[in-house]
């Protein structure tokens, strides 16, 4: 494929291959597949960020064949940038206003704080502040989460910060098919999307069936496991610990329903309220810090709209430590989920 980007709108409608067979892909490869399909379909889709030329710092810009996407799309569309977070994000805003659909890579969410003005004051506010004159179809990929021994500045999960900002969509996929499907929907949304992938999920394998049928709608939760005694709501990597906890609870005779929110904003209130209304108990679990976390928003909403009893489980309000013994204090494991669920059931 030529590296030149043409402006002709006719070229936007590249023909897709018919629905392919199901593939076994990692969480990272699933996103790369969605991005490369979007780049095939629309020449205005570009990606920019640090180290993209060698496939991204986590290999998330490499295809399933292991080759960096830049080899296919050229350095003008898979853009290696300087370490300039403010301008990576700010240039993304300018690109979006001038007709491109940028995917902005921020390396880790912690570094995105260097681009907070560009994300919160510029990308998120643009459409409203200028009275709808323009839109910012930008996807900002902000890898989140504890990543073994990465300490305080490479381990944070900020979904609650961005959920607080009108104008931003916030997504946190837990599985390879959802990473594929949600990235497609994020790219198609036309709004600025904060797309938060978990750094300890990159190698997680899953089944992905390429095609529009697997484009996961934004704002739609996924019921991972049906149950009748308690509703466990979670997202991102924590979904897996919660699912394990639900299995252990089942062994103790407790039927737990597990809901993966997938989109943090706009979140699927309907699915959560329906489930909590049925089970009468809601426990929200997230890896990020419990205090002022998004779990508080979910729990409060359920408490306001139903008679369900609610509880939250998140990390203590401490920076993530380097030594394993310290890091473990910040992690939420299945044991803690089981214990919190049993406490709630006894209330």
């Amino acid at each position, binding site marked *: 494929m030529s590296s*030149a*980007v*043409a*402006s002709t709108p006719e070229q936007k409608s590249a023909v897709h291959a018919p629905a392919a067979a199901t593939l076994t892909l990692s969480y990272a490869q699933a996103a790369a597949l969605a991005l490369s399909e979007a780049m095939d379909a629309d020449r*205005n889709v*570009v990606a920019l960020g640090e180290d993209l030329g060698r496939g991204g710092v986590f290999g998330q810009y490499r295809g399933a064949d292991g080759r960096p996407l830049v080899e296919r799309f050229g350095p*003008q*569309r898979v853009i290696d*940038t*300087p370490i*300039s977070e*403010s*301008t990576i*994000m*700010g*240039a*993304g*805003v*300018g*690109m*979006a*206003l*001038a*007709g*491109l659909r*940028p995917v902005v890579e921020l390396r880790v969410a912690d570094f995105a704080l260097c681009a907070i*003005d*560009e994300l919160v*004051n*510029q990308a998120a506010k*643009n*459409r*409203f*502040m*200028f*009275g*709808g*004159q*323009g839109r910012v179809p930008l996807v900002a990929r902000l890898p989140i989460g504890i990543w073994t021994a990465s300490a305080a500045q490479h381990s944070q999960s900020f979904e609650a910060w961005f959920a607080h900002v*009108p*104008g*931003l*969509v916030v997504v946190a996929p837990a599985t390879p098919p959802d990473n594929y499907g949600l990235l497609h929907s994020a790219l198609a*949304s*036309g*709004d*600025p*999307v904060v797309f938060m992938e978990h750094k300890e999920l990159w190698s997680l394998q899953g089944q992905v069936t390429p095609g529009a049928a697997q484009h996961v709608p*934004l*704002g739609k939760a996924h019921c991972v496991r049906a149950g009748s005694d308690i509703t466990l709501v979670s997202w991102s990597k924590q979904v897996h610990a919660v699912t394990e906890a639900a299995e252990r609870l089942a062994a103790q005779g407790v039927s737990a329903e597990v809901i993966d929110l997938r989109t943090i*904003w*706009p979140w699927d*209130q309907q699915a959560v309220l329906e489930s909590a209304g049925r089970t009468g108990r809601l426990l929200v679990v997230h890896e990020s810090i419990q205090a002022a976390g998004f779990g508080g928003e979910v729990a409060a909403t359920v408490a306001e709209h139903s008679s369900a009893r609610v509880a939250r489980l998140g990390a203590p309000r401490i920076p993530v430590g380097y030594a394993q013994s310290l890091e473990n204090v910040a992690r939420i494991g299945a044991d803690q989920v089981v214990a919190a669920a049993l406490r709630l059931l006894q209330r």
Partner: protein
Amino acid sequence: MNDLLSLYRTMVRIRAFEDAAERASQGGVQIWGQSAAPDAEPALVKGPLHLSTGQEAVAAGVCAHLHARDLLTSTHRGHGHTLAKGADSTRMMCELFGRATGYNKGKGGSMHIADFSVGMLGANGVVTAGLPIAVGAAHALKLRGEDAIAVCFFGDGAINRGPFLEALNWAQIYQLPVLFVCEDNQISATTRSAPMTAGTQAASARAQALGIAATPVDGNDVLAVSAAAAELIAGIRAGSGPRLLHALTYRHKGHVSVDPAHYRDPAEVAAALLTDPITRARELLAARGQAEAAAQVLAQAQAEIAAAVAAAKAAPVPLAEEAYQDIATTGQGVWA
């Protein structure tokens, strides 16, 4: 058109706009610890109003060489840039008055004035924020192969924020079609810039350190600004890569319209007023035998702005429901 009379027209339209906005902003506002006079009529233009009075030659001289397809980002002091880029004064004034018929439907006001239809991508409430956006726009223009450039106005205060360095570096490494215009009014809000800024001719020197050619110009000499901008813009259109124009000017008013700027030495202000770009252009026109034409242009500008004010006063305010519109399509109508 960039003959002196048309440059003069742009400048007096800006001046008339700023003067009218300034008048409409007096009254029921509080700023700098001062309370509004208890008997004051509520101001028609509320909130911070940053006037470019005295700096008109920079906007006029640069924008004379731009087309509607060229993209522009501006600062919190952006009325002049917006008018010079081709926006309609009535829709601008409506925006300042917070009316539904304003460019931003009353959602942005003075600090976010914009007319995307003429390539004016917005004033900005955050110092330096326009630079990364402008280089991104220039990047898109280059990748899409469009016959257009981006221009970015910023103040002397902006060069002390990190995104200034990032954006200039970015523009240079990707060789983007962008003109950076430092509108150097020598003051950062209410503090003189010189003691806050390392180096001399700092905007130019910092650009040159990145290999970006910088051109200093008397920003109160509209012909000089226009000539310098013409050359730089022609070069950028021909593929020179980024350039910087460093225009030295003076802000006649305070940081905001109700700031009397008593922190400045009256002698400095008096001296600066002698270099007023509009007076200089008018004298030059008179010397060229165009005094009558200049007077006519001035009268037209004042009539235009008076009509804009009248229209803004009569225009409807936005419906409260509009507060929920233009935010995001995703999830819209589900919950706010």
